[in-house]
């Protein structure tokens, strides 16, 4: 996968990851905010409740002390003692309650109820405290937490004069500050710690319902406590229902990360798969294009470049590429001259399309050509093709029709391997020639049997592939009938016939590929055309020209021969020109008639042949002249320098032909 493709996968994955992480972060932060808000709200509520509970405690203690002071001031010390006794003891608020007489800055203990006050252990501090208690409605508080018994001292003074009574109560704190409030208490259900003073100093811990210090979330506030301050620390030990648990943001973050990872994984996999699929599609499309190019090239290469020609026949061909499908079919035609009189017409159709069909066609066509040229008759050619194609091995087969046209005798010998019947058109109309049909090439079945037909002088044979008669919506029998009817009215050349059939049968282009080759008998046979068929390789031969009975025609004939041999070495041309000059000299001097010179390649490979035909009779003298005799050396030169020479005397009409042959490439093996 290249870098661009890699990027095409990576960016959506990064995007998915970014979106996932953003959502996760947002949800986590929201949850965190909700948790914090919930916690804060809950803590604030607790603070308020603890604070309220505390506020109810102080006035209760203050009332008891104030009432006791009032009793002492208004009544008597003994009555104070009776009054105080109710508030002192194991089951009462105070551990001790004492009455002090304050005059100015001096304080004197008057009476004490309950335990011995611990304030007496600190006489100086105690007396200063008592003396400094102001006559206000604020409770004075003394820290006695460091004493043997953890206590708080509370004092009240009612009279504002220079002397008066101060009632001092010592309030025992629990020996251990960690306490549990009974149900029904104002503090029940609350998680908190109370510290005397404005800070949460551990040594000033009054009491707590949780182990302190705590790992739970806390909130802290202060509340007035008499003339002092109490610090309230509330903790969030257990969340009430409806409040988000504190790990919720982490759960959300973890879950979000997991989801993001999963999403990016899935996205990445889907994109990679899609890309692979796209790449495969592109590759497949390219492969198809290449295959189509190869098969088209192959097929075009296998079809003859131009319509073949043959003496005595008028030949027309047509190949129509199908309009459906992208691949070329395996249709082909061929015309193989065997000699001056016989031409083999072949038409075939390999099943399937594309490269395979074109390849099979490419093996069948030259094989048929080779078998035909070595003299095999049509049925034998078709039989031999079975070695080349096998439907089980190659997954395709071929229908082939092979016809040998004996032109001068007007005889057609044909065999067919599963191919549609050939059409014969002449002055009387058109008809299909019925053959014994063999199995298609490559399919086991009955062998093809050759049939022979004699045809009229104006006959034309049309062989074709089934694309001509098979069309959608039309039965094959209807197709054949239409083809026959279209051909029946035809007049003119086979080129026009083929054009007419194509126009009638596939007016809008063939859906399948189709190949047609037609050959019609003509009356004229041009000898040069005839000769050219046997030697299609030479550019300048065969060549033939008539010359008048004139001495200057000899030089003209020499130049004609030279131009017909211009592809050969000058040594060969010089000899040919010399010998040609001798023969034409003889024609002019002895026959006294015009003559015709024909230059061809010989039937003997590697030789050229020059013929000089005149209207003379008999055979020229061939004996070598004596040195003193002036003439008669022409044929001596011919005999000496030609590889072969001879005289043909016409049997029916006047005229003779003298010819010679030369090696075209002397010295080469």
């Amino acid at each position, binding site marked *: 996968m290249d870098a661009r493709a890699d990027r095409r996968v990576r960016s959506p994955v990064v995007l998915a990851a970014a979106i996932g992480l953003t959502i996760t972060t947002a949800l986590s932060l929201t949850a965190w905010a909700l948790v914090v808000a919930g916690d804060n709200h809950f803590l604030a509520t607790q603070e308020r409740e603890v604070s309220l509970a505390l506020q109810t405690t102080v006035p209760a203690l203050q009332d008891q002390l104030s009432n006791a002071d009032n009793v002492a001031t208004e009544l008597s010390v003994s009555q104070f003692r009776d009054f105080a006794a109710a508030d002192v003891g194991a089951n009462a608020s105070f551990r001790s309650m004492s009455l002090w007489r304050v005059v100015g800055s001096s304080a004197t203990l008057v009476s004490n109820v309950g335990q011995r006050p611990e304030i007496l252990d600190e006489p100086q501090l105690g007396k200063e405290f008592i003396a400094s208690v102001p006559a206000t409605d604020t409770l004075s508080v003394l820290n006695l937490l460091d004493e043997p018994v953890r206590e708080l001292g509370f004092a009240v003074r009612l009279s504002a004069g220079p002397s008066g009574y101060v009632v001092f109560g010592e309030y025992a704190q629990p020996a251990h500050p960690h306490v549990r409030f009974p149900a029904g208490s104002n503090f029940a259900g609350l998680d908190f710690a109370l510290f005397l003073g404005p800070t949460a100093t551990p040594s000033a811990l009054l009491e707590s319902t949780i182990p302190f210090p705590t790992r739970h979330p806390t909130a802290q506030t202060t509340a007035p406590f008499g003339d002092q301050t109490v610090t309230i620390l509330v903790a969030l030990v257990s969340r009430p229902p409806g409040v988000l648990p504190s790990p919720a943001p982490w759960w959300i973050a973890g879950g979000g990360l997991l989801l993001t990872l999963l999403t990016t994984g899935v996205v990445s996999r889907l994109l990679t798969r899609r890309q692979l699929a796209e790449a495969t599609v592109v590759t497949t499309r390219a492969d198809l294009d290449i295959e189509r190019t190869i098969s088209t090239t192959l097929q075009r290469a296998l079809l003859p470049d131009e319509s073949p020609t043959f003496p005595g026949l008028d030949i027309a061909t047509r190949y129509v590429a199908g309009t459906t499908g992208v691949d070329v079919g395996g249709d082909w035609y061929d015309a193989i001259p065997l000699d001056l009189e016989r031409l083999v017409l072949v038409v075939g159709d390999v099943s399937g399309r594309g490269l395979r069909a074109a390849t099979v066609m490419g093996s069948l066509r030259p094989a048929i050509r080779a078998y035909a040229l070595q003299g095999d008759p049509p049925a034998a050619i078709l039989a031999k093709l079975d070695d080349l194609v096998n439907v089980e091995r190659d997954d395709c087969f071929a229908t082939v029709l092979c016809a040998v046209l004996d032109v001068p005798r007007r005889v057609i010998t044909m065999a067919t391997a599963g191919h549609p019947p050939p059409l014969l058109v002449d002055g009387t109309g058109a008809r299909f020639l019925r053959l014994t049909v063999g199995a298609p090439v490559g399919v086991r079945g009955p062998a093809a049997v050759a049939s022979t037909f004699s045809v009229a002088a104006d006959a034309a044979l049309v062989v074709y592939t089934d694309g001509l008669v098979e069309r959608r919506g039309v039965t094959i029998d209807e197709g054949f009938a239409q083809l026959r009817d279209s051909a029946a009215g035809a007049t003119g050349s086979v080129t026009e016939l083929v054009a007419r059939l194509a126009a009638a049968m596939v007016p809008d282009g063939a859906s399948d590929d189709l190949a047609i080759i037609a050959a019609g008998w003509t009356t004229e046979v041009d000898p040069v055309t005839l000769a050219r068929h046997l030697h299609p390789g030479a550019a300048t031969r065969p060549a033939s020209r008539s010359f008048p009975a004139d*001495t*200057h025609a*000899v*030089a*003209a004939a*020499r*130049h004609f021969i*030279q131009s017909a041999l211009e592809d050969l070495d000058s*040594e060969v041309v*010089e*000899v040919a*020109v*010399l010998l040609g*000059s*001798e023969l034409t*000299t003889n024609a*002019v*001097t002895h026959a006294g008639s015009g003559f015709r010179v024909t230059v061809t390649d010989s039937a003997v490979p590697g030789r050229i042949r020059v013929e000089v035909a005149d209207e003379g009779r008999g055979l020229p003298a061939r004996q*070598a002249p004596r*040195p*003193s*005799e*002036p*003439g*008669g*050396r*022409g044929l*001596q*030169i011919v005999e*000496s*320098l030609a590889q072969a020479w001879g005289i043909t005397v016409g049997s029916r009409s006047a005229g003779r032909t003298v010819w010679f042959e030369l090696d075209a490439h002397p010295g080469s093996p």
Partner: protein
Amino acid sequence: MGDAGTLTVDVGRAGDHTVVRLTGEVDLATASTLEEALSEIEGDDHPLVIDLSAVSFLDSSGLSVLVKARQRLERADGTNGLRLVVSRPIIRRVFEVTGLADVFDLAATLDEATSAP
């Protein structure tokens, strides 16, 4: 191959020799031209050299004229003052395959033909 079917005959002297220089093609059409030109040359004391080095083509028609000339110039003692200059291989072959290479006195160049025998 030179001009089609044309032959030029120039008669001149080279020292002691009479030189007939032929240019062009010698065939059925031009043989008569050569024959007329040669018939005007008497068998005098000067040896005759026919220079064929500028002849591009020569066939049996030309041979026929040369054989006739040779017969006419034959001396009483059977010797003959005629020499031919033949340089083109194909023309030399024509003389060879007809056996005339042994009959005529052939030289490869004019200098060779005009030097002392």
